[in-house]
């Protein structure tokens, strides 16, 4: 039996002792409990956090582990939201099936875009993927108009149930991304990011690994978009906006690149600024704070919140060892 395998049990124990899985579990537990306070807006803010945390972690996985820079990650997110609602409304698919197919279509389309642009240099790849997302912005505006599409009230489950499904998605997606980042693929992907010419000349199939990671990453972004579309029961062209395109990049940088913990912390902080803070301050002031925060992080802690806390912990450890 696989579950009785002592090697597997030891590996699971090792994983669960690391700080990132502990953070994922703690945040999941907090997310699951908070809606019972009965504040609907708070639940919306947390649903926003869930969707954007998965979206951010998927972007970060692609950038930090293979060096592929995309400004078009909103493509799978937006397509996921649109297709889930279309399949449910127009084709009568059950919600679960719409969700799965929506995420798969989002990943297939966006992964193909990624595969077609991956031979470009990072800056050009970023620009090319961004242009694709902007094409979708206009296409969706042309097809669905400014009002977009809304999920039929008859098939829409209660926001609370959807929210708790979102919490499960958060837990499973974050763990899956963490496992991908800590699998045997990790060193191959880091090698490709460090020097793709050297990697290729030492027998690593760079194109294959980059393509696979693009599809995997866009699948998670698609899942995030499917959930977000279902939760707000609506999708329109603004989902492909420039703001939504750049938000996960800012979130990942603020939290710390190359770590699921960074994506969670960065998304948490920026979600607070964009959903909770505007209750008392205007949205413009919130975005001003977001911009300033980004500048401060880039200037003083390139490793983001995770990098800052790690360096503080290392200093404290060194001080402690000196005293002994």
């Amino acid at each position, binding site marked *: 039996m696989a579950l009785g395998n002592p090697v597997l049990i030891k590996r699971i124990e090792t994983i669960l002792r690391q700080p990132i899985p502990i953070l994922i579990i703690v945040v999941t537990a907090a997310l699951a409990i908070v809606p019972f306070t009965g504040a609907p807006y708070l639940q919306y803010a947390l649903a926003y956090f869930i969707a954007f945390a998965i979206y951010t972690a998927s972007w970060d996985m692609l950038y930090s582990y293979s060096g592929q820079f995309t400004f078009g990650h909103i493509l799978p997110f937006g397509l996921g939201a649109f297709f889930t609602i279309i399949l449910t409304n127009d084709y009568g698919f059950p919600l679960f099936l719409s969700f799965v197919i929506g995420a798969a279509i989002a990943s297939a389309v966006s992964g193909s875009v990624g595969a077609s642009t991956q031979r470009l240099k990072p800056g050009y790849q970023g620009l090319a993927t961004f242009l694709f997302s902007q094409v979708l912005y206009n296409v969706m505006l042309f097809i669905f108009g400014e009002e977009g599409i809304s999920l039929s009230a008859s098939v829409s489950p209660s926001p609370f149930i959807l929210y708790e499904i979102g919490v499960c998605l958060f837990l499973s997606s974050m763990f899956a991304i963490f496992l991908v980042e800590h699998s045997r693929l990790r*060193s191959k992907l880091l090698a490709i990011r460090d020097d793709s*010419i*050297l990697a290729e000349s*030492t027998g690593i199939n760079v194109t294959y690994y980059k393509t696979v990671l693009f599809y995997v990453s866009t699948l998670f972004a698609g899942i995030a978009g499917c959930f977000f579309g279902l939760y707000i029961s609506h999708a329109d062209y603004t989902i492909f906006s420039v703001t939504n395109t750049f938000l996960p990049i800012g979130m990942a940088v603020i939290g710390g690149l190359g770590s699921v913990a960074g994506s969670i912390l960065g998304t948490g902080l920026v979600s607070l600024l964009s959903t909770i803070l505007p209750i008392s301050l205007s949205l413009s002031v919130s975005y001003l704070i977001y911009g300033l925060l980004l500048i401060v992080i880039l200037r003083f802690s390139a490793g983001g919140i995770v990098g800052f806390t790690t360096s503080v912990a290392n200093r404290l450890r060194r001080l402690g060892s000196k005293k002994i």
Partner: protein
Amino acid sequence: MTTLSVKSVAKQFGNLVALDGVSIEVSEKQMYGLIGPNGSGKTTLLNVISGVLKPDGGDIFLAGVSIKGKTSHNIARLGLARTFQTPRVFQHLSVLENLTVVQHEGGDAHEARELLSEFGLKSEMDKPAENLGYGEKKQLDLARALILKPSIIMLDEPMAGLDFPMIKTMSGYIEKLCRSYGKTVIIVEHHLEELMSLSDHIFVFDHGKKIEEGPPETIRDSKAVHLAYFGR
């Protein structure tokens, strides 16, 4: 036995002819030198053979199989390893991981550790590769090429930028590749004395053409070589 055969290979960058119908034959377990003035096409030839650049014409056979147009990773898997002029490392991986990451299926860390010890990097194994010195990165290049279990290793200026004692050390390592590990070694190098003492056979290039070939003593006295290097 011929292990690498380059037949009338041509490569052009715009109007610049980098390789003009170059043909060479390489036999197994021998040491070959590629020399010529700067811009004569030596590195371009290595890039074309290893699949970094696609040739415009001609064909290349590795152990009798055409590798023209194949990707670099396929050529590496067919048994051709190479290093670059400037040492390249996977900087975010440890020295040991720089080897294990490129190992074929079934390879283990023990083998990688032994190779690193052989190439003078025993005490550096767990350090990030980016912290290595210039010469150490060149040593890592050799160890990484060897762990691919290639039949041919191509070294692009392995002694460039090294001080005299380090050149001697590197020369010993290169000799080991051929004489101890039984690899065919092709070296592009400007340290002619070292190259002459290492090589069994030398190819001389000028303006994208092979102008001479033969054992080192023949090359030393060749008028064509003197003309290419000194203009007289």
